């Protein structure tokens, strides 16, 4: 019986909507856009915020362990453990079945076409069992495979690498492949799609030969929670462990505190907050769309008063009327949701493919069951939000009045009018908040785009390379190989200068050291600085001319014992207290391990670290001759005249010619570096901007509709006013004043909402304060312009009311 009644109500609702297909189409489209946008954003957000990495039987139980220092602006993915910390958690944590670790590394494979670079990781032997990963072919790594860095004998490779580089060789297991100049035996091939932790393609087993330096924080640690345990219970144990290490190893552990997190959280960083902001914003867009729907429904209900009055007179209860009206809204919502779900299915893959950075392999952006459930839930909510109030309002009628004078009495009903105006006030408020948020994000992105990295970006090409092979073990050998490459590049047409460094500006940070200014300085007086390896000519290549002193010479570049250093202007100020620092000495290290250097030059500040992730040391650069660091991972900086396209095509050959063990990768212009390091902010700014535009359009439609109704309801009054002598201007003032009062209230409420939104976004902003008056003023100005635009046609209609016609209608 109840089901029959519901079916009847839905059928009746469909008929009712069918009588005005244009209006129904507008409502369905509005809902489709709102629900589709929400489903799209939810599909993205859930993968970042909520989804668990698929670790088979251990899904949901894998946590990551980190070590954070209060003075460093760290994200979780930049907070590895030191070896003492790793051993401490391995031995002492309760409620954790297993603790393993990995170190992300880059490897050089020697293949037919030369040296190629592959992302990989050194993993503790038990890591694959912790994440319940088994090779598709061969076996996993075990204790007998484990050795220190550079002494590995076995390797497990990815399915993609096996296909791409080795042609899916059926005899791959047992084959020896040159990795970093050493022949490693392939013992296993992982299943298709496996790329733990993100995009890795080969894995070697790690066990330190000698205890690593206590200060080196290099191990990303994972734990497997025992059934029934959670992150909080592990976190509570980490504080006393950290304090104990603090006490025992003060020099390297002071103030470091370990913490635990869900595994995915360690990869999402600040993205999580931005995603949450997007989700909130898109929900607000949906609310504005619901308000439009509600406004249309209220207006429609005015036309149906006589029908409602008749139904009551014939015995229908108020509840029956409400159910019938809600059935209509539910039907609209379902159709809108269906269309929206289809829209989302198209939008999500296209959005994901537009990301310049490939997400981790375990992050799946799909419009799946969870998204369907979210869409369904929103459909019900939409029905309630958009339908309940209009249904309640339009069911509260007096048949005695409405059967005699339906339409006129209620169109002038103050309560109906207040309800409609209240809806539009809410829309304007939400619109303002979204515009404020979008403006802030766009300003922030523009600041990022325009932030000065300290280098001349135009005409600057960058590349990364890895020096593999035992013959370049010695720092001098590395430097000579690089010198050959730099000279080879510099000889090409169009190249002004080629240089080598260990960090690309606005992308990489260097390692941070504390510098002592003089022999008696305490650690509290030490100045944090970023150490960057440099060749001769680096500053010329970067377009950062020397301010004082001189550049490194080629001899210093190749000398691992060189004591010359070059400092940035900020570091010079910190050290020199106003005086010239050229010729002064600074030392890195602590206590008896101080290593004194002589400053030979001062250069302008260059930004190391991505914009938005700066530390105090980001512009305090201490440049040391490359050979002093002797790292295998190097960056090239090449200054060109005109386009660098021809050079890019030649770079790999030039690298091979300089040394066969040079694996070149990541060739990008400096502009491309800027784009790749700011794409997230661009993405969020664009999406937020889209939402703000959608909100303006929807709120504008709501305001326009309300003003049209206002004019229609007051046609008689306008006619009387005209007959009594009102000019066109006086009538226009009437309409504009009404629009102004609604907008004014909306702006007041929206100002508060906007402040809350701005505060929520504060940590995501770059170079702009959240509560700056200019942003709010321009946002409010946009809304005022919207109001005037929406009022234009209603004003024209009002001023063209013929008093004769208006009075005759009476």
């Amino acid at each position: 019986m109840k089901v029959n009644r519901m079916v009847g109500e839905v059928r009746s609702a469909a008929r009712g909507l069918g009588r005005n297909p244009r209006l129904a189409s507008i409502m369905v489209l509005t809902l489709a856009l709102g629900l589709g946008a929400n489903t799209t954003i939810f599909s993205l957000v859930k993968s970042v915020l909520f989804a668990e990495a698929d670790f088979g039987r251990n899904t949901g139980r894998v946590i990551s362990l980190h070590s954070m220092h209060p003075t460093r602006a760290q994200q979780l993915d930049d907070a590895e453990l030191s070896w003492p910390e790793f051993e401490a958690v391995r031995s002492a944590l309760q409620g954790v079945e297993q603790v393993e670790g990995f170190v992300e590394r880059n490897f050089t494979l020697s293949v037919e076409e030369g040296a190629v670079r592959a992302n990989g990781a050194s993993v503790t032997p038990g890591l694959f069992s912790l994440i319940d990963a088994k090779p598709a072919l061969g076996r996993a790594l075990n204790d007998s495979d484990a050795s220190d860095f550079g002494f590995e004998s076995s390797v497990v490779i990815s399915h993609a690498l096996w296909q791409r580089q080795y042609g899916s060789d059926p005899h791959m297991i047992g084959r020896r492949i040159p990795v970093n100049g050493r022949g490693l035996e392939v013992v296993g091939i992982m299943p298709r799609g496996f790329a733990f932790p993100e995009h890795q393609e080969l894995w070697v087993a790690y066990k330190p030969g000698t205890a690593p330096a206590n200060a080196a924080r290099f191990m990303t640690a994972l734990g497997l929670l025992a059934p029934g345990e959670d992150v909080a219970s592990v976190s509570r144990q980490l504080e006393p462990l950290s304090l104990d290490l603090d006490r025992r190893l003060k020099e390297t552990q002071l103030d470091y505190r370990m913490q635990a997190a869900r595994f995915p959280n360690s990869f999402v960083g600040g993205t999580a907050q931005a995603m949450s902001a997007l989700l909130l914003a898109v929900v607000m867009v949906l609310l504005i769309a619901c308000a439009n729907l509600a406004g249309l429904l209220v207006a429609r209900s005015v036309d149906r008063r006589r029908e409602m009055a008749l139904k009551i007179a014939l015995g229908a209860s108020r509840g029956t009327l409400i159910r019938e009206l809600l059935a209509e809204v539910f039907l609209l919502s379902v159709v809108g949701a269906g269309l929206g779900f289809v829209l989302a299915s198209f939008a999500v893959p296209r959005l994901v493919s537009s990301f310049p950075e490939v997400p981790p392999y375990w992050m799946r952006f799909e419009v799946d069951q969870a998204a369907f459930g979210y869409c369904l839930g929103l459909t019900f909510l939409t029905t309630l939000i958009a339908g309940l109030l209009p249904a309640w309002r339009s069911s509260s009628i007096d048949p005695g009045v409405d059967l005699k004078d339906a339409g006129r009495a209620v169109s002038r009903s103050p309560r109906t009018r207040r309800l409609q105006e209240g809806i539009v006030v809410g829309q304007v408020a939400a619109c303002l908040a979204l515009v404020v948020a979008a403006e802030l994000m766009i300003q922030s992105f523009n600041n990022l785009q325009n932030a000065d990295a300290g280098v001349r970006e135009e005409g600057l090409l960058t590349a990364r390379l890895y020096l593999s092979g035992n013959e370049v073990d010695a720092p001098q050998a590395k430097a000579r190989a690089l010198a050959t490459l730099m000279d080879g590049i510099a000889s090409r047409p169009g190249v002004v200068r080629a240089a080598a460094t260990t960090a690309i500006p606005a992308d990489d940070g260097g390692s941070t050291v504390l510098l002592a200014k003089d022999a008696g300085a305490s650690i509290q007086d030490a100045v944090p600085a970023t150490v960057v390896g440099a060749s001769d000519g680096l500053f010329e290549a970067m377009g950062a001319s020397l301010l004082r002193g001189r550049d490194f010479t080629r001899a210093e570049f190749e000398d691992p014992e060189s004591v010359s250093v070059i400092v940035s202007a900020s570091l010079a100020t910190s050290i020199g207290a106003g005086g010239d620092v050229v010729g002064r000495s600074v030392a890195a290290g602590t206590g008896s391990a101080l290593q004194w250097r002589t400053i030979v030059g001062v250069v302008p500040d260059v930004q190391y670290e991505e914009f938005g992730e700066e530390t105090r040391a980001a512009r305090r650069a201490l440049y040391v001759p490359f050979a002093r660091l002797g790292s295998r991972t190097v960056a090239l900086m090449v200054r060109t005249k005109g386009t660098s396209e021809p050079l890019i095509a030649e770079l790999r050959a030039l690298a091979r010619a300089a040394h066969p063990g040079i694996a070149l990768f990541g060739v990008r212009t400096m502009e491309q570096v800027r784009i790749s390091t700011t794409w997230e902010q661009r993405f969020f700014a664009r999406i937020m901007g889209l939402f703000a535009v959608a909100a303006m359009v929807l709120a504008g439609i709501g305001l326009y509709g309300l003003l049209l109704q206002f004019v229609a309801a007051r046609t008689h009054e306008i006619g009387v006013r005209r007959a009594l002598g009102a000019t066109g201007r006086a009538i226009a003032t009437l309409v504009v004043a009404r629009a102004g009062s609604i907008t004014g209230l909306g702006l007041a409420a929206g100002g508060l909402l906007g402040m809350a939104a701005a505060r929520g976004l504060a940590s995501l902003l770059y170079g702009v304060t959240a509560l700056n008056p200019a942003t709010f003023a321009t946002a409010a100005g946009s809304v005022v312009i919207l109001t005037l635009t929406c009022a234009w046609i209603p004003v024209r209609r009002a001023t063209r009311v013929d008093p004769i016609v208006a009075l005759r209608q009476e």
Partner: protein
Amino acid sequence: MKPERPFIKNPGDLKRTHMIELRNLEKSYPLAAGRVYVLRNISLSIAEGEFVSIMGPSGAGKSTLLHILGMHDGDFTGDYEFRAEIVNKLKPRDRQELQKGNIGFVFQSFHLLDDLTVYENLELPLSYRDLKKGERQAIVGDVLDKFNIVGKKDLYPAQLSGGQQQLVGVARAIVAKPKLILADEPTGNLHSDQGREIMELFKKLNEEGSTIIQVTHSETNATYGNRVIRLKDGWLAATN
């Protein structure tokens, strides 16, 4: 009563001070291949101080004529002269100024604004006439007093009886001291007692110098005036 004729001139009127003179005034609407005439060849004069009743069957064009006289409707042919101004040759803005300064209108359905109090309804015409607030207050106060409705100034139209509403309607029509009062079936929605009160009021206003033109179906109401103009099918049937 004189017999009805389709067209009558009244040369005797030409010698008085004419407030209004209509010469061959016609009003029509396009329909299909031709036109529908609402008023045909209306020529008449109305002197200052007259109290004229326009009568005729439904559809005769009475209200149309009244709205043309009230300068609400500028779409007609022929000449309409008002106090030596040729109305049909004026620009709409000038016509509106002429109307504002000289004419008050009383409607059958009162047409008070429901959201305004009695005081505010009376003040409304003055607010369109560049008067300071103090002046408006003084004038409205006088009118409230004159019509004996001071006690009702804060009430809304929905709180008044029909007769009281029309009283306010008449008060609003004269608040700006118009030279001419036009009334379209002013007692049409009132009881006979209320109607009599309103007509007595009109008579008093006429005696005080206001020119009044009313459209009425009531012969009784017509006796309050001193002349009757009869229309039939848009034609001037008689004037006496």
